[in-house]
């Protein structure tokens, strides 16, 4: 077997191991879905009654933001999972085995991606129940989900770097999470960014979260028919921005987390 095929096989073994945890601890999946469901209900019925978005029902506007926020918050799982494996000595065991060095990270990010797929399915059902609709074709919807998962995968590698840097589960639990609040709220996820004060508006427009959210709204058809699109580059080309951001994050954080993994494990 070639080295690459062997590495892929090792990654699969670790992925399977991580997935068994999701199966054995279904509470984990339930609780990681409860929070976004709560956000859907709170925003749709509490804030939504006061927020007016031109040209489209707020519940339709909201879901793209919720999807993106959910996978962004979900990425914190990667940090926690890796910190836990380090702390419990499982990574020592892995490192004493003749397996591919990449398998621990590939296995973790892959299983977290699959976890995200499950959560996104649950969120979609929840969205459909409150009145969200997919209004463009099937291909467009598939593209939207693919883009969302690409972004989730990239965020997972950011989180991996954090988890391997902080090393302790308790710290990873807050460090992997806390920065995501400003990042997701300083965006177009819950309110249109046009009405923000200038500085915040510019930040929000260039925020990767906004690019993903805007792409999802386009691809799902959750925008008003005659609503003018903002003039800035990220608003004009959200899909280019979303894909670009995701690839950029991967280009930075894949090598960075691999380096952190080596450093963390050889101490």
């Amino acid at each position, binding site marked *: 077997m070639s080295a690459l095929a*062997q590495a892929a*096989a*090792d990654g699969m*073994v670790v992925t*399977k*191991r991580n997935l*068994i*945890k999701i199966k*054995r*601890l279904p509470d984990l999946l339930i609780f990681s879905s409860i929070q976004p469901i709560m956000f859907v209900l709170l925003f749709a019925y509490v804030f939504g009654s006061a927020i007016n978005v031109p040209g489209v029902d707020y519940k339709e506007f909201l879901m793209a933001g919720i999807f993106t926020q959910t996978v962004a918050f979900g990425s914190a799982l990667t940090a926690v999972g890796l910190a836990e494996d380090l*702390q*419990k*000595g*499982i990574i*020592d*065991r*892995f*490192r*004493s*085995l*003749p*397996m591919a060095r990449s*398998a621990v990270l590939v296995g973790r990010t892959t299983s977290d991606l699959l976890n995200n797929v499950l959560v996104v399915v649950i969120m979609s059902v929840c969205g459909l129940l409150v009145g969200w609709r997919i209004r463009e074709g099937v291909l467009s919807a598939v593209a939207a989900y693919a883009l969302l998962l690409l972004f989730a995968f990239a965020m997972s590698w950011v989180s991996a770097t954090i988890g391997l840097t902080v*090393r302790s589960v308790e710290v990873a639990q807050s460090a992997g999470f806390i920065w995501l609040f400003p990042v997701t709220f300083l965006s177009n996820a819950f309110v249109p960014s046009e009405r923000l004060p200038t500085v915040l508006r510019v930040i929000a427009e260039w925020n990767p979260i906004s690019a993903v959210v805007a792409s999802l709204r386009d691809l799902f058809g959750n925008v008003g028919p005659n609503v003018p699109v903002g003039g800035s580059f990220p608003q004009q080309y959200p899909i280019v921005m979303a894909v670009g951001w995701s690839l950029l994050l991967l280009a930075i954080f894949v090598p960075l987390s691999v380096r952190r993994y080596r450093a963390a*494990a*050889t*101490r």
Partner: protein
Amino acid sequence: MASTIVAEGLSKRYGEIRALDGLDLEVAEGTVLGLLGPNGAGKTTAVRVFTTLLRPDSGRATVAGLDVVREAAALRRIIGLSGQYAAVDENLTGFENLDMVGRLYHLGRRTSRSRARDLLDQFALAEAADRPVKTYSGGMRRRLDLAASLVAEPQVLFLDEPTTGLDPRGRLGMWEVIAGLVRGGTTLLLTTQYLEEADRLADSIAVIDHGKVIARGTADELKTQVGGDRLELAVGHVDELAKAADTLRAVGSGEPAVDEGARRLTVPISDGAGVLVGALRRLDAEGVEVLDVGIRRPTLDDVFLALTGRAAEEIDDEPAAAGRGRGTR
């Protein structure tokens, strides 16, 4: 006989702390070496170097002729490691844990599965095989961790404090399992804080302190070095200490140590039961009130006291390498 494990001048520093400070070691093929020392002596650091988890700052080490740094990948195929903390996945069943390790040794699906079942049988875990490990007792987890280190039938096995944290029954069970492995001819390096454990399992013992080997020999040689068994005695009154010390000097094989505060005396002896009876007769004749008396085996403390002039717990000040990792070096 060829040496399977060789270390020459291994050093590893963590800031100001010298976890390894010029460690030299040799383990002959098919034998068991007990690496004996208190917490923080450098036992775990040494094992981490031998098992490719840690690069030494200087010095070199080979296992089965393979350099632990340059030939790490090849070395990992022929070693097994069972650490101080049972590194098994709690959410997986015992079978799934072993099967996973087999797959990662690239044994293939069928071999991994059958090997996992065989090991679970061998380690009396067959009944619990399909239960998640979180339901296991401490002893069961340790056995599973040990089984995981044996999946690929390694030529060389490293066990880092295999019985620390186990209750006496768990410890005895573990000893039997390890003794069984040793009969199979595996080369084994085992670290422990207990002289008794090294005595029971190891062909030879290396005592390690501050990252250096400070004594080597068989268990008997080390015990002779510290004077064999001890007679320990507690008397009722401080005034009787002198009389009791005279008596002990007569029956013992060395100078008695006197602890005035605890009214306790200790003397090395060469012939256990006979000396005890003789000493009690004499003390009775002298009219010394004896509160407590007994013979005990030398402990790691005694070995340390004899070798370094200080007790093992006094140097138990391991700063856990500035709190990193799991605080074991």
